[in-house]
């Protein structure tokens, strides 16, 4: 396969992945005004957990709209946002039968299953920077217990720390989109995040979750014969690139 053909393949793949993720981000952004509306309408601007129940159909609709790419969606509340819970996830997940199920989490710090989302990158990075972000792949222990990517959009309500509105990506579907687009094994094509962690690839040598042998974005860019950033309507929120490995 010629370098021109390969160049076209990685560009088309990056664009496709960017478009698919942007569509999920757009869904999340569409939900932001409703969250603010509920928070603002509550006494003293401090809503209760139950006040967000009316958003359930919309959260479930996000899972239904992306051909299996999204298998979880919800709101992770910041500190002091709710008046009746310190930590809370209004989160929905697709069950085995494809039906949405409420995702229960353990917020007891003494439990081995404690889900301390405030300390997790997918929540911390977007809420601290105030910018939307795709985080992962990471092992979501205590949450989905799977290797996933989470897209999160920060939301600042009148009271408390910022919350995050998020969607979990189902990696097998993400891998399938990638592989069908790459559709060749002539060369090793990998999609990596800005930490050099492989999101997915067409080679068994660099599988999902492993690290490329380089420690900075500029260093691992040198591992590629050709590469392209995954584009997004909001630059920086999908910090991934698709590249053709040298000698691969």
């Amino acid at each position, binding site marked *: 396969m010629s370098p021109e053909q390969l160049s076209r393949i990685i560009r088309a793949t990056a664009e496709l992945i960017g478009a698919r993720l942007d569509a999920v981000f757009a869904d999340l952004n569409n939900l932001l005004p409703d969250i603010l509306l509920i928070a603002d309408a509550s006494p003293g601007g401090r809503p209760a957990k139950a006040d967000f129940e009316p958003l359930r159909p919309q959260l479930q609709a996000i899972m239904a709209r992306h051909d299996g790419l999204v298998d979880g969606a919800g709101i992770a509340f910041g500190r002091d946002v709710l008046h009746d819970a310190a930590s809370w996830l209004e989160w929905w997940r697709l*069950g*085995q*039968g494809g039906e949405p*199920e409420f995702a229960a989490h353990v917020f007891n710090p003494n439990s081995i299953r404690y889900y301390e989302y405030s300390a997790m990158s997918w929540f911390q990075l977007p809420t601290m920077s105030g910018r939307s972000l795709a985080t992962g*792949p990471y092992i979501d222990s205590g949450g989905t*217990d*799977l*290797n996933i990517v989470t897209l999160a959009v920060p939301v600042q309500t009148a009271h408390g720390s910022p919350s995050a509105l998020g969607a979990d990506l189902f*990696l*097998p579907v993400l*891998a*399938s989109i990638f*592989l*069908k687009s*790459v*559709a*060749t*094994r002539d060369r090793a094509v990998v999609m990596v995040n800005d930490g050099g962690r492989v999101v*997915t*690839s*067409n*080679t*068994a*040598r660099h*599988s*999902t*979750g*492993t690290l490329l042998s380089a420690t900075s974005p500029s260093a691992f860019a040198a591992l590629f014969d050709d590469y392209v950033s995954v584009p997004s309507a909001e630059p920086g929120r999908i910090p991934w690139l698709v590249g053709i490995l040298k000698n691969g």
Partner: protein
Amino acid sequence: MSAHSPDVDTAVHVGTIDMIAQLRGVDAAGTGLSDRISRQLESAIAVGLLNEGDKLPPENILAEQLGVSSITLRQSLAEMRLKGLVETRRGRGGGSFISGKALTTPEQLLSEFKRRSPEDLRDLGDLAATVAAGVGRRAALRADEQDLRRSRELASRFARASTAEELRRTDSRFHISLGVAAQSRRLTNATIQVHSELAALMWIAGASTASIETAGEEHDAILDAIERRDEEAADRLSAAHFERESEALLDYFLELATTTTPEEA
């Protein structure tokens, strides 16, 4: 005369049922209980924990051993009967028996294989290699002559196996025997769990003679290292064996995924 009922005496050993109960695999939360039990029983057949003609304990006892209600167990058994994996004989000496029918067709195995993901296969390979490394190391320190003879015998059965099903079963039994040689109940159970999942994926591609030969040579090299009590080599060779096999598995998956036919796309 036995104090136990004859049904219990002739049925598969409670230790086997205990192992079956541990074959959890990666069932996600939300999987129905009866589905999970069916999968455990099917995995047990795939790795040769349960074999043709084996009689299952009476339903109430089996349900208790597997930690489910009799209703749930009956649902699983009904499902397995439909698939032809279990048959029920009435009358004296009757009960539920494992039938000789092949588990799943090659086409079913292939379509299930295609529904896996690269990450999932890599993760299973990591577990297999890690467990095998620890098993190999300890077997080299602890295996006696009898252990070695048993493992050699299973290795040669693998080398002689001609069908995919035989390859799966003899491969699993060989590796389980190394766990036994390592004198570790938990490592043996972990090996069984790994193989209960791996078995359905192995040798799907229509095993090439070359890949069977390679696996056979690796088995022999592991046994040689164990025999000369070289724990470093047994550890390294066992890990490398599963790393190579899981890389081949992942390669085959990626090959299929990048050459999808239009009607599948």
